[in-house]
Structures are given as C-alpha cells and as structure tokens.
C-alpha cells in the first residue's frame, strides 16, 4: 500500500503539525515515511507545501511524482488548486473553505470553490467553524487531519496517539481539545 499526500497552505498556517500527526500514526503502524517540507523564505506568508509519503515498502523520491498524489489536503482553498498537477485520477482534493487573503489579487471566493467542485473527488469543509464549534478555535489543522483520516488506511486511534505525542508537554486540556477537533473533522467527512 502507499498513500501520497500533498499538504498545502500559506506560510504560518502550520501545515506541518498535520504532517506530524499523520506521520506519527504511519510510523507507529510500522509503515515507511518520507516527508518533504518547505523551510526558509516562503514561510513568511508565501505559499507552502509538504509532500507526505507513506508506504509499506522503501520510498525512493522525497517528492511525490506528478499525477500520483492520492490526496491534496489544503488548509486554504486557493492553495489546494496550486497542486492539481500532482493529483492522481482517483485522488481526493480536501480543502478548508476559509480563504487566507494576504495578496491584492486574490480571486473571487466563489470562483475558487467552483474550481474545487469541478474535481471528481472533492471534500470542502468549514474547518475553522468546526474547530470553533468544538471549543478549539485554533484547532483547524486537526479538523483537517481528522477529515483526511477517513481516506487514509491507518488506524484512527494511532492519529489520536499522535496528538497525545505532539501535545504531551502542554497539558491534558490541550490534548483533549485537539483530539475533539480531530474527531469532529472525521465526523464531518463521514457525514458529507
């Protein structure tokens, strides 16, 4: 088996914590992992992406080959479209609906969403709203990770463990509220 995920967003939105949770779950399930990140200049509000590759055998390339991503998981709608050439024929495009507007020529929101809806397999979710509803306004990332979990063949409990691992130094309340966000994202993906 293999799962190739493009994580997308804007520098500062924290896509790497999603990669860490899924990555932790993969490694704890005895799978191989490669994860290419963007560090440096782009982190200052530019477009950023991470290639997360999981497989049950050795992985060669740190980059996902074009047309081979099983999923584009984006915390920002326009950014999800930037990586379409990577998407496999049966791949899923999963995006948060809240735009991050820090450029003057950001396209009209409805056009962005319309482009996403053109994809055969897509899931749009109001992740910021869902995070607020479960009382974790900063948990948007974990909502997105939870939504992705529906399409990833790794035990969900391992992702919960991943959250416990990442936030272990920050107290039980923080752990619980991030697990709540993860579960809410998963629930939304199953119901919609």
């Amino acid at each position, binding site marked *: 088996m293999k799962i190739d995920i493009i994580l997308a967003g804007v520098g500062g939105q924290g896509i790497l914590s999603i990669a860490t949770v899924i990555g932790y779950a993969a490694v704890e399930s005895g799978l191989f992992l490669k994860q290419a990140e963007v560090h440096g*200049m782009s982190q*200052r509000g*530019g477009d950023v992406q991470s290639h997360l590759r999981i497989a049950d055998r050795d992985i060669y390339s*740190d980059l996902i080959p*074009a047309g081979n991503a099983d999923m584009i998981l984006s915390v920002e709608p326009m950014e999800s479209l930037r990586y379409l050439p990577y998407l*496999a024929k049966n791949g899923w495009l999963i995006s948060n609906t809240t735009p991050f507007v820090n450029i003057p020529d950001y396209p009209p929101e409805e056009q962005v969403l319309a482009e996403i809806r053109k*994809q055969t397999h897509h899931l749009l979710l109001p992740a910021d709203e869902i995070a607020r509803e479960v009382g974790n306004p900063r948990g948007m990332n974990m909502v997105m990770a939870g939504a992705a979990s529906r399409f990833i063949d790794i035990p969900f409990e391992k992702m919960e463990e991943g959250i416990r691992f990442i936030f272990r130094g920050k107290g039980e309340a923080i752990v619980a509220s991030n697990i709540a966000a993860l579960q809410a994202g998963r629930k939304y993906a199953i119901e919609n």
Partner: protein
Amino acid sequence: MRNQKLLLLGDEAIAQGALDAGLSGIYAYPGTPSTEITEYVQRSAESAARYIHCRWSANEKTAVEAALGMSYGGKRAMACMKHVGLNVAADPFINSGITGANGGLLITVADDPSMHSSQDEQDSRFYGKFALVPMLEPANQQEAYDMCFRGFELSEKYRLPVMLRITTRLAHSRAGVVRREPLPENSLQLPQDMRQFVLLPAISRRRYKKLLETQHALLAESENSLFNQYVDGPDKSRGLIVCGIAYNYLMENFLDGPCPHPVLKIGQYPAPRSMVARLVDEVAEVLVIEEGMPFVEEYLRGLLDRGIRVRGRMDGTLPRDGELNPNLVRLALGMNDEAGPAVPEIVAGRPPALCQGCGHADTYDAMNAAIKAVFGDGHVFSDIGCYTLGALSPYQAINSCVDMGASITMAKGAADAGLFPAIAVIGDSTFTHSGMTGLLDAVVENANIVVFILDNSTTAMTGGQKSHAEGRLAQICRGLGVPEEHIHVIVPLRKNHEEFVRIIKQEIEYKGVSVIIPTRECIQTFRKKAKAKKEQ
C-alpha cells in the same frame, strides 16, 4: 543506541551522524537550507553532555577557519553552510586542501537548486574539484548519516578536508535513519609536522605537490566506495549515471521492477573513472542525471563533445536549470507524462511578505517618505535578509540585493560615482557577518553615505537564531570611527514616523558616514518568547 531508528530531516541526519562519528565541534552561520544541522546539535542533550562546540560563528569564513583550528588540534570538526556561504569561506576552504587536516574535517554544503531561498543555484561540487578534495553526496537521509562516518574516516586517512554536499530537498525532507555504534571523540593531538599549516610559498609548493599526488589514491577510493555502485541491466540502448538524490527520481519510475538499463550511482567523488568507462563502453548512449549544474556531464562531454553520446542537462533532455523531480526524469527517459489537471488560471501567485507588525515595514515607510518621495527611486542598496522583501509591493523601497554585506560597499561605490543620496540597508546579523569591514572602508574615506542597520535582535529569515550583533551595534560603529553624533538609534513605530523622517533627512544632508539603527525585536521571536513565557 545501535540500530535505534529515528525520523530525521536530511540536515538532522547529518548532525546525528557527525555526533555519532565522534564530532567535537560544529561551526556555522545560519543559512537555508543548512541551518537545521547546527540547530540539531544545539538542541541535543548528548551534545551538551559532551560539551560539543555548537555556538554560531560570525560568518562562514570564521566558521571554516575555526573548524580547521579544531582539526589542527586533532579533533573532529564540521563546518556547515549554504552554497553561497562557501563563497564567503572559499579562501580557507581552498587553502585547507593545501594545509590538509589533522583531526577529521567535514565541510558540509547545502546547495539550493531552483533558488527556493537563495540568490543563485551554484553547484558546490565545482568547489570540491577546485580544492582537489574528496566529496560525498548522499541520495537519502540514511546515506547522509552514514557519510559522516565515512567522511571523517577518509579525512583522517588522507589528512584532508572532505566535502559533504547535499541539496535543499534532502536537507528538508524527513525519513527513518538507523543509528550505528557511536565512535569516541579524538583527544587533543597536535599535527605530526609542525609546519603542515604554514603556507609559506616553499611549504605550499611541497604540500600542493603532495595533494596532486594524492589524487590517484582518492580516485581509487571512489572506485571501491560503497557509495558508488554499478548495477547492470539488459537494455544497453542507454546507460544512466545518477548522482546523489537524482538516483531516487530515477528509481521512482521503476517501482514495479528493476531499471532495464545499466545504472551507475555516484555518491563519492572524484567520479569513479573505470566505472564510468565500463558504462560508456557497454551502452549506446549515456543519460546523466544530476541535481544542480551539469558537473559530471560536462566532464564526460569534454571540450570537444565528440565520440561518446551523452544526454542530460546540456542538450535539453533535462532542463538546464532548476531542481529535478521524478516527472522531469520520467520525461527524459521518454516515458509518458502522468501530470494531473493543469493549475486553473485564477490561482494567483503568493510571494512571501514582511510579517504583520514587522518593524522593517515602519522603517521602509519612513525611508520612502524621506528618500523616494524627495529624490526618486534608485538610491537604496540593500542586503540579504527578511528586509529584502522591501523590494516588493507595497514598499518597493530597495534597489539591490547581491551578497552578504554588499549594501554598504555598493552604496559607497555609488557615492564615489556621484550618486546622492547613497543609502545602505543591512540587518544586524548581516552587518556583523560581512558589513563591518565595508563600513570601515566608508569611514576611512569619509564616504557620503547613510547606513541603516535594521536591528531586530535576531537572524530572522532563517528562523530566529542568536545574532552576534546583539547589544553591540552602536559600540561597533563608534569603534570603527563613525562620529558619535551621526549614530542614531530609533524605535521604528508608527508614532515615531515624523521623528524618523526628520533624522533621515538630516543625515542625508550631513557630508560623511551616518548610521541609523532602527531597533525593535522581530515580531516572530517576540511571539515565540511570549508563548514560551505563557506556557511556563
């Protein structure tokens, strides 16, 4: 520790590899994509327990020289830098080939093809060849780890520095790495020959001859290296030479079986000549796949490019510039393009920008009011750092960014040419990296320039490392001879705008060197500290 598996960035694998291979000191100046090597050693509990040297250096030159000094003392040292950092350190690096090493000396250089965070995409392998030293180039994180052991071993066997060359993709990609049994550090041991490091011409000539004679042995090492492998294949219509990480991009296209063509994987240089000869003799044409510039390809073609049929970056089979990926290699192999849907036209570019609340923004507002609005565009020479983003909208406040320190010296040269006003903008850390000597040039000639040293108390662009300039800037400027009354420290905030503009105008009118130091902590490090305090 043996067989322990860690999930590490390529940079971190190098740091862990060096620690396990008996490192006593790491020397570096932050630079993407190499920064995380030193940061890993700084965070490591083991490194603290062993008192490994891991403080930042002022620049790459001082880093390589200090590493050479530790090697002189018989201990294992590593200097690391980004590719353009090696330009700064070129003098000690090239000459360390002549002096040679005593304790193991690794020079780790991270190249940045596609210029993700750099001003050029030079290939450091040319430097390794120039210095006539062995080079190692890992294909993956495990090799990056293992090559630290091999690198120190080679360095101590031949008493030569060894270059470890990586590129951005490996530096910033994470994968599992299995640790080996750690080696003990060396004890203090002076060189056997007390004149080894004295490069007086008579000694240099002798040592250079020795270096030249050693080349045969280095070639033999490459021929027998585990990092250079020849894997035969039945289809001889084509043979492949793949260097470093390019190997992964090749193999990614043959997941369901072995590559049908013979493959020579190169991870140690000088390039293994007899292995290359074998490939050339057996196949109809050779495709060279290498990350960076066509280093091996150009040697293979030679000046006349006759005889051997070679494909690669120089004939357009692969792009001449930019980073490789599995798809580019796939197309070079003549396989079909698997790319998915095109990017919709509505997707707009999203360049990086100064953070909300960044002090540099207030400085550029004041500068534009005092300079651009009065004298027009074209007066401001800038430097390498976050503030280079002042070139973009809405500021469009600067007219140059060339190399570390070039702001002050270019402003001086332009003033010499008659440009008025001539302004320099440099960050605090960049100033102590390479700006101080240029300021001295300006002071000695009383050049008519205004120098802004933007003090945000950190090396911000690379993630907030400690700056050597902290608390020392005004003192350094006074020491270099800038008149006390022409050194101004101001807090760049909206409320100080009028005062700021007034000072700039006043110093433009002064005929001589003025220094203005806008001082306000980087918003990122400020938030980080506030967050850490809250969590306590």
